[in-house]
């Protein structure tokens, strides 16, 4: 008996403190906590303290201009407080930030910079810095294609004096103006000299934001310190914790103040933890991100919109929402930010309806002529492969459910799993029957031309090969329409047509699922993440 003592002690310990040292008999979480809505702030902000943030991935570099570092969410989160843009976008409006004012003509934008703004290394912001940043972006030899594509209509940049920048356009394009003012981080000209790939600024940023870079310990953490009086926090430390289980332990221990990008299951698991109700708050907020299944419309099987509508009706949306997305990813029909005026709220998702799907397939000429249980047409069986990335946990759960309903409808589908690198190569080469992707943007303003215009099917992002001349014309008009209201009306028409054609089988909107200790205050989530200047820590 005595030999079992250590195990018995351990189990007793588990029994005693199984609820994390808090009162397990306390009432459960309230409705606000369950929804992930933050409680209204009542306290007075105090200065000082360190916010420790868990990131599931480490950024590869900290310069958003560089294609390799640009789009990653982790980069956006970490460099957000370091760099500033000429203007800030909020609720569809632009307010001055580094720019004091700007004026527009049909083909030019004249920007006057704020006086007295300094970079973190003490040098003053001038028009030469804006020009140098744009020169790097527009240099075709540099890996800045992401920003370059968005500023494609930029013709020239002039700097008549230290505070004035004149940008001339070759043609009107709403996205170029928005990118220049609200997305392009302004970087110091002197730090952009030399081989762009190996510039020190990629790993030690020099910006004008409320926080300045302190240090980066590869694989472990990245820290920023308060640059001036705009922020309450002394320091923000981003810790790279890939393993979600370990991160949850650190969060419960109080080593992390803010958990970002939790998986739905981890976010849900907090509901069963009494310590979590009492010491933390869950945060749910909309992002401009959605997932979709794509059928290769270059292949005869998927050319007919009727067939794609039938496939959408065979998608077991409710089952997936309940068992895979855990009720956290509501279905979408819109390729724009769902809360924006660009989406038509009258468009409803196609309901799961196998009978109607079979009728549509029959109308498209598909029947089981040889009675083998699989539909066929002119000797061709309805059989295809779903390309899936091995790292995608969601697809590993979703696809078997979908394949099951397809099988019952007489469609033979199988899953072909490859690693993510091979996956993307094949998607780019259009070497697939069906696949899944998601699109995400940190901005409400977006241009769907690269995703749905037929000219983008060969080399661009229109991987599914969608083609509709009417949608092409609409997307072209959207690009040149500078009036926001008229543009939103055109985008709503794009939404209606793209959904009617089932260019994609739209899945769910992906929210941000975060959690913070109750000692962290001032968190105001937005598409651009939290405004860290408002965040403060209580005792």
């Amino acid at each position: 008996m005595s030999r079992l003592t250590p195990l018995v002690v351990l189990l007793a310990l588990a029994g005693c403190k199984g609820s994390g040292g808090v009162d397990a008999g306390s009432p459960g979480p309230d409705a606000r906590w369950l929804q992930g809505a933050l409680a209204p702030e009542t306290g007075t902000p105090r200065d000082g303290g360190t916010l420790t943030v868990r990131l599931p991935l480490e950024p590869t570099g900290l310069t958003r201009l560089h294609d390799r570092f640009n789009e990653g969410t982790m980069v956006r989160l970490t460099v957000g407080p370091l760099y500033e843009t000429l203007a800030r976008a909020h609720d569809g409006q632009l307010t001055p930030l580094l720019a004091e004012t700007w004026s527009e003509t049909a083909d030019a934008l004249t920007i006057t910079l704020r006086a007295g703004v300094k970079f973190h290394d003490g040098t003053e912001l001038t028009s030469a810095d804006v020009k140098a940043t744009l020169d790097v972006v527009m240099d075709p030899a540099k890996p800045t294609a992401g920003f370059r594509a968005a500023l494609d209509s930029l013709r020239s940049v002039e700097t008549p004096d230290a505070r004035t920048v004149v940008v001339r356009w070759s043609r009107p394009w709403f996205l170029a103006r928005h990118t220049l003012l609200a997305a392009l981080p302004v970087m110091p000209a002197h730090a952009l000299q030399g081989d762009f790939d190996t510039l020190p600024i990629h790993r030690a940023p020099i910006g004008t934001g409320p926080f300045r870079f302190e240090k980066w310990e590869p694989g472990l953490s990245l820290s920023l310190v308060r640059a001036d009086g705009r922020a309450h926090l002394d320091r923000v430390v981003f810790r790279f914790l890939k393993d979600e289980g370990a991160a949850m332990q650190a969060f419960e221990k109080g080593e992390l103040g803010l958990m970002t990008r939790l998986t739905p299951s981890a976010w849900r698991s907090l509901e069963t933890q009494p310590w979590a109700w009492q010491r933390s708050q869950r945060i749910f907020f909309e992002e401009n991100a959605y997932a979709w299944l794509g059928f290769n419309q270059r292949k005869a099987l998927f050319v007919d919109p009727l067939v794609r509508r039938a496939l959408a009706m065979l998608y077991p949306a409710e089952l997936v929402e309940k068992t895979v997305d855990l009720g956290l990813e509501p279905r979408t029909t819109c390729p724009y930010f769902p809360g924006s005026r660009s989406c038509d709220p009258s468009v409803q998702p196609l309901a799961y309806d196998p009978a109607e799907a079979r009728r549509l397939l029959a109308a498209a000429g598909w029947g089981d002529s040889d009675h083998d249980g699989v539909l066929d047409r002119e000797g061709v069986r309805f059989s295809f492969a779903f390309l899936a990335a091995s790292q995608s946990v969601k697809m590993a759960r979703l696809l078997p459910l979908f394949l099951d309903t397809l099988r019952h409808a007489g469609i033979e589908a199988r899953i072909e799993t490859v690693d993510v690198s091979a996956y993307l190569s094949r998607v780019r080469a259009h070497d697939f029957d069906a696949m899944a992707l998601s699109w995400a943007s940190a901005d409400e303003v977006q241009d769907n031309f690269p995703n749905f215009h037929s000219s983008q099917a060969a080399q661009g992002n229109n991987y599914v090969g969608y083609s509709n001349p009417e949608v092409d014309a609409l997307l072209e008009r959207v690009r040149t329409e500078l009036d926001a209201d008229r543009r939103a009306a055109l985008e709503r028409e794009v939404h209606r047509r793209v959904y009617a054609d089932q260019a994609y089988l739209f899945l769910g909107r992906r929210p941000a699922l975060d959690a913070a200790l109750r000692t962290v205050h001032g968190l105001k989530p937005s598409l651009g993440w939290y405004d860290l200047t408002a965040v403060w820590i209580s005792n």
Partner: protein
Amino acid sequence: MRRYVLRRLLLMVPTFLGITVLTFSLAMLAPGDPFQLDLETAGLGAQAVAQQRVQRGLDAPIPLQFGRWLSRVVRFDFGRSLIDQRPVLDKLAEALPRTALVAGLALLLGFGLAVPLGVVLATNQKRRWARAVELLLLAAWSVPSFWLAVLLLMLFAGPRYLPLFPVQGLADGGFVLPVICLTWPTLVIATRQVRSAMEESLCQDYVKAARARGIPERRVIWRHALRNSLLPVVTMFGLHLPHLVGGSVAIERIFGIPGMGLLAFDSIGTRDYPTVMGVATTMALVTMVSMLLVDLAYGSIDPRIRLERAG
């Protein structure tokens, strides 16, 4: 002896070339592209990807790329990562000491405990407690390291039980739990190896002769029998040496240690060829040196091997 070592060192050159050619070819022929980002941001167009491939020389024939890589490596230049643009040597220099510390402690602890434990088990094989320990070892062998890691993390780093260690990293005693996880399998397998080798040695005529000559039992076991049982243990030790630079992906991920295992795993996943080759080259060199050290250790343990070489 000197000639033997020199010959072995020279043999390392073609072996090294063979390993690197094979690794380079496999890495380059694997489907995928280093110039891809994550799934949701595949928006970088095909033209931009093609341009980056040309700029990085990845459009050249594989033999030419290998030649370029080799010409840099002989000058100790492993190039730059295709993902974060940092020198591969810097990345190796950061990851290697972390993995070597954890794996080295685990190796020393594992073999350091396995030898006396194996001897004690072999010399007490008929006792009930020895059988119980063996059964325990067998059960322990089936415990996956990652599961043990999660358990230890929860018990000794999480807040609920005994939060003695940090959740992430090696500082503040953070190395203890990963070392335990990595020691576990080494200890089990090495103990069983020592025990079975010792059991065999204890039945040999020279052991009986030593006992007949009245040499104390302790000396017979620890001096005569153990020395002859060590050959397979040395082999196993040599085979474990590459773990010093290989790392364990699961353990490093769970304990948040940015070591060689994670570096290799991530660079393979992102097709970061220069980093893949940097890790592979380091491992190849350590493995070859380990093999040489094992062979040399054989000679010092078993005089017959020395004689054969001399002959």
